[in-house]
C-alpha cells in the first residue's frame, strides 16, 4: 500500500535513541517488530483486545498496536527486551520462569511489563490489586494463578533484595 507521507521520527526505546523514516500510519507495534527487529513485543488481536502488544510508555503500560510513533516522540518506551539489566533477568522474569507462569509464552512480554508497572507503584500489592493491574492481558494457557503467584514472588524477592531460588512451598503453589 502506498503511503501518503513518510515521517522522520525519533523514538527512545529501552534507553536508546533511534531515528528512522517510517510511514506515518505504521503502528508502534509494526515499527518495533519490522523496522527495529524487536520481536519480543507480540501481535495478537491488533485491535486492543488482548494485551499481547503491551509496552511501557513513561512507565505505564499502553497497547502498541493502537499507538502511532509520531505520537510518542519525547517519551520513554520500554519493551520486554529492556527488562534484563547488566546480563541479569529482571526478578519478574526469574519468578515467571521459576513458577511456570509462562507456558507457550506468547502473552508473557505483555504480562511482565504490566506487572513491572504495578510493582513500581506498589511494592507489596494484594492479590486483588494484581488481578486488577493485569486485567488487560489475556492468557490462554496458564489459567492466571501461576502468573499471580509469580508476581507475588517477584515482589517478595524485590522487597527482601534477594533473587535466589524460592522455598519449595512457594514453588509448588498454595
Amino acid at each position, binding site marked *: 500500500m502506498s503511503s*501518503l507521507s513518510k515521517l522522520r521520527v525519533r523514538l527512545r526505546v529501552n534507553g536508546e535513541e533511534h531515528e528512522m523514516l517510517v510511514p506515518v*500510519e505504521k503502528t508502534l507495534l*509494526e515499527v518495533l517488530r519490522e523496522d527495529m527487529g524487536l520481536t519480543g513485543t507480540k501481535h495478537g488481536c491488533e485491535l*486492543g483486545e488482548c494485551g499481547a502488544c503491551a509496552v511501557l510508555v513513561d512507565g505505564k503500560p499502553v497497547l502498541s498496536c*493502537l499507538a502511532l510513533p*509520531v505520537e510518542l516522540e519525547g517519551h520513554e518506551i520500554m519493551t520486554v527486551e529492556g527488562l534484563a539489566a547488566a546480563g541479569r533477568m529482571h526478578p519478574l522474569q526469574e519468578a515467571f520462569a521459576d513458577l511456570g507462569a509462562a507456558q507457550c509464552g506468547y502473552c508473557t512480554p505483555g504480562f511482565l511489563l504490566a506487572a513491572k508497572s504495578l510493582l513500581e507503584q506498589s511494592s507489596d500489592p494484594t492479590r486483588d490489586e494484581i488481578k486488577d493491574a493485569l486485567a488487560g492481558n489475556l492468557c490462554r494457557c496458564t489459567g492466571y494463578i501461576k502468573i499471580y503467584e509469580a508476581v507475588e514472588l517477584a515482589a517478595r524477592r524485590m522487597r527482601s533484595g534477594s533473587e535466589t531460588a524460592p522455598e519449595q512451598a512457594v514453588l509448588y503453589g498454595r
Partner: protein
Amino acid sequence: MMRLPAFTYAAPRSIDEAARILAGEGPQAMLVAGGTDLYPNMKRRQQSPRVLIGLRGIRELSGITGIPTTGLSIGACTTLTDLSTHRLVVESYPALSRAVRTISTPILRNMGTIGGNICLDTRCNYYDQSYEWRRAINFCMKCDGDTCWVAPSSRTCLAVNSSDSVPLLCAIGATVRLAGTHGHREIAMRDFYNKDGIRYINKQPDEIVTHIALPPVNGWSATYHKLARRGSFDFPVLGVAVAMWRDPDGTVLDARIYLNAVASAPVEAAEARQALIGHKPTPDLIAHASHLASINAKPMDNTDLDYAWRKKMVRVYVRRALNGLS
C-alpha cells in the same frame, strides 16, 4: 498484520489551530485523541479518514480544574486513568470514577480519553467486523451499503451507543463544551445524542469537544451498573445510571435514570422518574419504577447476548441501582 490505511497526520498545538485544520480539510479529516476507538475502526476500514488531526499535543485539552462545590471542568483529552483516579473525582464524584473504571482494561484506560469516550462510534454486530466480513454481507447502511441488517425496513441505523461514561454524565447533568471556527457553545450531555446510529452526536463538522463540565454535587448521589459478558475488556450491553436527590427524611426530591447500550442514544426513563419524585423509595415503589424503566428500553438483536434476556435485565439492573442509592 491488520494495518491502518494511509493518511496524513496533523499535530496542532492549540484548539483554534485544530478547528481551522478541521474546517479546512472537510469530511476527509477526523480528530483523534487516544485512538482506541478510531484505530480499530480504521483497521477494519469502517472509517477511513485521509487526514488525522491528533489532539493530544494540545495542552489546554488535558487536566481537571474547579472544585466540587461549584463544579469541575474536565479537559476532553484527559485520559480515563487520570480521570478515574483524580482525587476530587474519587472523593466527590465516586460514581463517575467507578463508571470510568468499568471501561475496557487498565492498559486501554491509559490511552483512551473522556472526549473520545463521549464521541465513541456507535456499535453493531453487523458493523464492527473486518472489511471482508462486511463485504460478504454486502455491507450495511452505516458504512458502504444501503440495507440495515438488524431491521431491513428501518430507515435509520440502529447501532448502539456503548459508552460507559455517557449515561452517568447524563444522569448527573453534565454539559459538553465545544469549540469551532465560529466560536464556542455548551450543550447538555443528554441533548448531545441523536437516535440515529450514523449521525449519533449533535456536533458540527468543524467542532471539537474541549471540556466536559460537571455540575456541583449539591446533595445528589449517583451510581452506575454495567452488564457485560466479562468483567474486563467488554463493552456494556446494558448500562444503567441513576442520580438521586433526597430529603433528609428519605423522600425523593428528584431522580434521573438513564439507560445505555439499548439504543443509538442514551434513553431517559422519564416515567420511572415521575413515579419516584415525592415518595420514599420503598421496595414496592422501586419494583414499580424498575418496571416502568424497562418499558423504555427496546434493545435490538445487534450486540452480544440475547436481546430478549437483555431487555429482562433492564428491570433487574434498575432495581439494583435504585436499591444501592436507597
